[in-house]
């Protein structure tokens, strides 16, 4: 049985993680991380504290710091869980997403997510980049745009089935098609940058990631280039571990195989 001081330390480590601090920011934080890494009892204690708060420790390393996920965000709601089936208080609500400028409409939000996944891919293009802890990826919005557009048009060429939605059911629009209809870049009538363009969308994604300390803008880069933080890498791995990707990838391949005779 741990004493109260240990419980306090474990809770403090969770709090540091929630505060999105960097391990370098605080001496106490660094010490707690070292303890977490070395002391298996303290590790178990910290994970229990997190669990009680409906959180899960995704990773806790000196480089990435304490990275947490809201439990509701990674597993189905479990009626026997600490909140008895209620949403985790740490699950981002629609309003919080809006706060970091994530769109609310379904189509815009999914395009935003597509851009987010493209940023992750461009930051870590090879599996070994994503899995190499010492790797810092770089992201340049205009380059991400080109890569994503190329991938979308490639898929568009390969798909042999008819996928265009009837015009009364726009929610059946496929995301790559939706992306291809977005102008790459552009100017409004008075020479200002077009905010609805794809480059602007990706720049907004990078800004949101910067706000939650997943990216940091590199100084003196023009056009602006962002560098990934270890935390982003951990979160990307977390995202890639979701169980549905294999299924989605097969579904995508199926689109390119089935042919409907015309």
């Amino acid at each position, binding site marked *: 049985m741990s004493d109260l001081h240990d419980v306090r330390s474990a809770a403090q480590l969770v709090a540091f993680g*929630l505060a999105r601090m960097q391990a370098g920011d605080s001496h106490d934080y660094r010490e707690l991380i070292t303890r977490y890494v070395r002391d298996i009892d303290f590790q178990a204690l910290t994970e229990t504290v997190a669990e009680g708060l409906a959180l899960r420790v995704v990773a806790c390393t000196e480089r990435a710091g304490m990275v947490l996920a809201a439990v509701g965000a990674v597993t189905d709601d479990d009626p026997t869980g600490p909140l008895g089936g209620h949403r985790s208080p740490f699950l981002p609500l629609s309003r919080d997403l809006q706060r970091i400028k994530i769109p609310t409409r379904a189509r815009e939000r999914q395009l935003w997510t597509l851009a987010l996944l493209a940023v992750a891919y461009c930051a870590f293009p090879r*599996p070994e980049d994503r899995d190499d802890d010492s790797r810092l990826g770089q992201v340049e919005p205009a380059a991400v745009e080109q890569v994503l557009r190329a991938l979308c048009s490639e898929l568009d060429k390969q798909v042999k089935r008819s996928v265009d939605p*009837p015009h009364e059911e726009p929610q059946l629009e496929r995301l*790559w098609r939706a992306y291809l209809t977005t102008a790459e870049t552009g100017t409004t*009538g008075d020479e200002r940058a077009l905010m609805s363009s794809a480059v602007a969308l990706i720049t907004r994604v990078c800004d949101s990631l910067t*706000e939650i300390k997943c990216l940091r803008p590199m100084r003196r880069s023009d056009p602006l280039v962002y560098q990934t933080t270890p935390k982003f890498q951990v979160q990307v791995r977390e995202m890639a571990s979701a169980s*549905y990707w294999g299924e*989605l990838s097969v579904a995508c391949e199926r689109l390119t195989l089935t042919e409907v005779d015309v």
Partner: protein
Amino acid sequence: MRRAAAFACTRPLHRLEADKGQVQQVDLDPYPMDHLALDAIELVALHQAFQDGLTREEAMQLLASHIGRYAAERGSAEHLDVAQRILVELIAAHELLIPDVDDDGRLRQVVRTLRLLTEHQSPTGRIYLRAGTEAVNVLIDRLDVDASSSAHAAELQMQFLIRHGRMAEAQDVAHAMRLLSVHYMESTRRYLSAARRNLDEVDWQGDVERHLAEAHSHLRARIEAECAIDGELQAALDSGATTDRPAVMGALQLIKRTSSTHAELLEQLAGVFEVFRSEQDRQRFTNRVILARLADLRHDVLNGFMALTVQDASKLEPHPAQMILGAVVLPQVTVAGIVERTLASLDRPEPSDDPVEPIEYDEEEPDDSLRSELVGWLDPDVVDGRMLSEVLVEARQELDDDRLHRLAAIGMEAFGAEHLAVLGGAGEDADHASVPERFLIGMPSGDPLRVPGVPWIGGDDLRLVAATVANDDDRPAGSEER
């Protein structure tokens, strides 16, 4: 069905021609708008290089001088205006209804979005135009025909035309050849950027080698042909045998431009193996530890996600965006925060008696793209020190009523913006996320907000002051300013 789709791509051109009678400001009768639109597409396609091309302004100037040939007496201002109309129409997205067959074999109409010209950003930040795939297809048929044989045929045709003095046709063929070179450059560029990301994604043995061999033989043939044609043209000029000197000069010019395109392609091809070697060094000799259970970001994640419909993507649980964003701490409302907020409001001047008219908009689903577009009007650095009414009067020239309404609402948000910053300073870290480094504070000036001609905007006029968040504990600089 493919023919119907291809035909649909020409519809924007026909529409330009058909609608020209409805344009009130300019008499477009002398101008064949559909032909000019084709010329505009060709102009853009011919100037598009590896990562560059004509800007909208340059394209407008070039097109205008071409338009001038139809109605020289109308003056260059009108030609520019016509050029702009054409370019705007070609850049705009056109929604076309195309016949299609669904999975059950039933016929239906589907919507396709088409842009004939698209805007891109070059590495130097220039925004330039490119002809879209459909545009190139409408213009010069399909480009992905067997490259070597069609090039050979075209060359024979060109030599024949020049020998018989048919310079104009020879120029056409040379145009087509140049577009083919541009096509090779485009695919080389795609291979190179893919190789920089991940060598494993590029099939070096098959695709790239075949592509390089084709491009090289295309170039070799082109350069030989150009030398020969150049010689024949010079000879024609020197002997005085030709009656059409301007056409010969034009053809010579074209050959020169074509040569420079080819030189660029040659240089690009020479760099391919250099890129391959350096990327091999960089990518191969780093440690490779692959966790097999994780999905591949490109094939599984990106492709899998982009193939979903909007509806299915919204239903993913847990949603990938949530997983990347991680746990979020909600701002907690504390008594201390409320007290501080109340105290802060005592420092402010009393607003005038004219009540602020509540401006409502749909809180559930605000259109974020619209908001982001409108926020441009309220750039803190630009409007610093101005009155909200001035900004609205200016905006009224360009915005419709709905947008103006929304802009007024966004402007009103500046009123009380300092409270937001105070809350952040009171120790609620999560709130920092919402306070940008530079923001606007609106101070009631005591005058009513009036925008001439817009009776439904009312309340207090605000003086807008730009403020900067200095650091975590400070109140924003400038919040004391009036």
